[in-house]
């Protein structure tokens, strides 16, 4: 996922861990965390795009991609 809503952290990797380590863990910080109260007159998506994305406001849009490998 290439967007600035993703945060990374690096958990401790022990010498005797039974499974291959996950070096990097990530979590999403969606844009609602930085808006205490939505200002008036923000830019809007075109309506058909807004209906598809689930929000009228680009400032509130948070993309998310599956970690499941694609089929085929």
């Amino acid at each position: 996922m290439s967007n600035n809503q993703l945060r990374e952290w690096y958990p401790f990797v022990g010498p005797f861990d039974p499974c291959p380590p996950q070096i990097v863990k990530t979590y999403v910080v969606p844009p609602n965390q930085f808006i205490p109260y939505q200002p008036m007159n923000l830019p809007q998506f075109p309506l058909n795009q807004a209906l598809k994305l689930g929000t009228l406001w680009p400032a509130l849009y948070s993309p998310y991609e599956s970690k499941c490998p694609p089929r085929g």
Partner: protein
Amino acid sequence: MWVYEKKLQYPVRVSKCDPRMAKFLTEQYGGADGELSAALRYLNQRYTIPDKVIGLLTDIGTEEFAHLEMIATMIYKLTKDATPEQLIAVGLGPHYANHDHALYYENAGGVPWTAAYIQAKGDPLADLYEDIAAEEKARATYQWLIDMTDDVDLQDSLKFLREREIVHSLRFKEAVEIIKADRDTKKVF
């Protein structure tokens, strides 16, 4: 009262036979942070919340029922044609024994829904902060569900629902700001 529109809030298309995913999706149907919990939590809290934010709880609580209907559609489509053998193979044997192909308000582990999942504390800040937390937990649940399926059509509907949780969370944060504002006090600068 409500007016019912005989259509889903967002299209639900399932393009892969995957009854196992139905079991996972049940978390958002009858789980602690699921859509049923959300709808009932907000629509119950609204009676005892300051009147400036009652409308918000009504609107979001109503939308949660629209989301519940979408989740139900996903689960139904994924299980309606499954044989008992297929259901047993994905861990839904106990569900079939109790419910046949019927949907039921339970979480992904089969624990029935309980009112203990939701709170109404009567304190506006306590209630609204619970609502904000519930929206973020539901957003996280949708992320883990999106991670577990490679069906892009199912992912599409789940991404829509995830975005709605983000918008709802902000609206509840705005409600907190409204509650905090000391509007009846005359301010002299």
